[in-house]
C-alpha cells in the first residue's frame, strides 16, 4: 500500500498531466481529421467509377495523394513536414506543433476507413432518394452517412487507436503525453515502474475505446 502512495506522490502529477496531454492531442487531431477525412471519403465515393458524380481525375488525384501520405511513417512525416507545420501554426513544437503532423497523418487514414464504410451503403437506397427528388447534399448526410454509422464508428475507433499510437512520438517535438513519459523516465532514466504504469494505462485506454466503439456500433446496427 505504502509503495503505491509513494509512487503516486512521486509520479502522480506527471502521469495525470501526460494523460491530459495525450487526450488533448488525440481529441483535437481526431476532430480536425474527421472534418477533413469524412468529406474526402464522400468525394471518393461519389467520384469513383460508376458513381453519380463519376470523375476520373478528381478520384485519381485524391486517391494518389492519400496513398502517398499513407506510405510515410509518422516519425518521418513529423520531421518531413516541419516547414509546413511552422507555416500553418507558426511553431513546430509543443502540442500546437504536433497537431498538424497528426492531422496530416490521420486525415487520409480516416478518409480511407470512411470510404470503405460509405461503400457499404446499398446504391439502390441512394437511387431511391434521388428518385424522390432529394438533392445530393442532403442524400450524402441523411442517407449515405446515416446508413453507414455503424461502420463509421468502428472505423473511427481504429483511427483513434492509431492516433494514440502516433501521439507517443509527439515527445520528440516536446508535446509530452504518455508515450513521452514512458520514453523519458521509463527508458532513459531506468524508472521501470513508470514504464509499466504508462503501458498499463495505454492498454486500458485502448481496450476501453475498442469496447466502447463495438458497443456503439452494435447499437446503431439494426440488421
Amino acid at each position, binding site marked *: 500500500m505504502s509503495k503505491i502512495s509513494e509512487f503516486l506522490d512521486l509520479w502522480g502529477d506527471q502521469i495525470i498531466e501526460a494523460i491530459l496531454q495525450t487526450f488533448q492531442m488525440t481529441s483535437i487531431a481526431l476532430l480536425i481529421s474527421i472534418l477533413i477525412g469524412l468529406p474526402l471519403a464522400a468525394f471518393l465515393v461519389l467520384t469513383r467509377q460508376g458513381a453519380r458524380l463519376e470523375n476520373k481525375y478528381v478520384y485519381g488525384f485524391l486517391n494518389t495523394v492519400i496513398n502517398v501520405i499513407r506510405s510515410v511513417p509518422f516519425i518521418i512525416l513529423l520531421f518531413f513536414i516541419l516547414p509546413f507545420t511552422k507555416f500553418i501554426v507558426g511553431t513546430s513544437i509543443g502540442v500546437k506543433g504536433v497537431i498538424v503532423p497528426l492531422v496530416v497523418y490521420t486525415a487520409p487514414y480516416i478518409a480511407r476507413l470512411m470510404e470503405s464504410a460509405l461503400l457499404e451503403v446499398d446504391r439502390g437506397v441512394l437511387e431511391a432518394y434521388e428518385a424522390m427528388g*432529394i438533392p445530393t447534399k442532403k442524400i450524402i448526410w441523411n442517407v449515405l452517412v446515416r446508413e453507414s454509422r455503424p461502420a463509421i464508428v468502428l472505423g473511427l475507433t481504429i483511427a483513434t487507436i492509431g492516433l494514440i499510437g502516433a501521439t507517443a512520438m509527439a515527445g520528440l517535438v516536446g508535446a509530452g503525453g504518455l508515450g513521452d513519459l514512458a520514453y523519458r523516465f521509463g527508458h532513459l532514466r531506468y524508472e521501470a515502474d513508470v514504464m509499466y504504469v504508462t503501458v498499463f494505462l495505454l492498454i486500458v485506454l485502448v481496450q476501453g475505446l475498442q469496447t466502447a466503439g463495438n458497443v456503439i456500433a452494435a447499437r446503431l446496427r439494426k440488421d
Partner: protein
Amino acid sequence: MIKLQNVSKTFVTKKGKVEALKNVSLEVKKGEIFGVIGYSGAGKSTLIRTVNLLEKPSEGTVSVNGTELTKLSPNKLSASRKKIGMIFQGFNLLKTATVYENISIPLRLSGLPKAEIDNRVKKYLSIVGIESKSDSYPSQLSGGQKQRVAIARAIAHEPEILLSDEATSALDPDTTEAILDLLLKINEELGITILLITHEMKVIQKICDRVAVMENGEVVENGSVLDVFTAPRHETTKRFVNSIFHHQLPEALLTKLKETGSIVSLSFVDNTSGEPTLALVSKKFNVFPNILSGTITQLKDVPYGKLIVHLQGDDSEIDRAVEFLEQQHVLVEGVKRNDVKNKRIS
C-alpha cells in the same frame, strides 16, 4: 401523362457499347396501369429509369404531364421527380431507420412541415396496411411488408405517377397477389397512374390495362392487354401468353389423334363461354369435339379462356365447324404439324 419519344440509350463500357434502348416510343395515359414485359436484359429497367431520368437517354425526349424532363435544370427536375414515385425489386429502405422514419425522413428532406409529415405517415401506413409495424426496423419485416413500406414511402409524396421496377419479383406468389391488389387499390382509389415493368405474365394479367412487350431494347408489340393476349403477333409475345396456359400434351397422343381429325386451340373472351358453343358444334355438324386441355383465366376484370380441342370428323365437316365457331367470336387456331415437336401447343 408519360410520353417517351424515340428514346435510345447506349451504355459505353470497357467491353464495348450496349444498346439498351433502341428508338423506343411509348405513351402512358392518365389513370391507367401500363405494364412493360420482357425477358431479362430486354432493357425494361433502363426504360423505366429514363422516365424519372435516373438514366439520361442518349437520344429522344421524355415528357411527363407535358413537361419535357430532358430539358429541365437540376432544380426543376428535383421538383418534377417529387410527382413521380418509384418502387423497386429490392425495396431500398434505410436499414437503420424504423418504418415510420423510412417514410418521414424523405418527407422532411422535401421540406414538409412537421405536423403534415406525421399526418401523412399515419395515413399512408394505414393505406398500405402496416400501421402496427410503425416502430419496427426493416430487418424485422417480411418481403411483402418491406414492399408495403416502400409503397407508402413513394405515395406519401402524393405523386401522380408510380413507377414500379419489378416490385413483386422478389416475393412469393401469395405475397405477389397481395401487393398487386394493393397497387390496383392505389390506382383506383388514389387515381395514381402506374407504369410497371415485370417479367411475370401474371402481373400483366392481373392488373394492367395496357402492355408493351420488349425485346433487345425495342418495343416489339404494344396495345390493350386483351388484344395482345388474344391476338399476340410477335414470337416473344406468344411465348409470354403461352406461359400462362399449361397445355402440355404427350406427343404420341397428338400424333394418334391427328389421324382421326384436327387439333385446334379455341380462345374465348368475356362472356363467350366455351362449352355451350362446343356442344352446338357436335349437334350441328358431323364432328365430335373432345376437350384435351383447358384453362380459364382472368385478364384484370375480363374472363379469358383457352381450350385445346380434338375435332374428330371429315375435313369438310371440320372446316364448317371452324367457320361456325369463328362466327361465334371464338378465336380458332389450328395446330400445325411441326408445332407438335414443341410439345407445348397453342
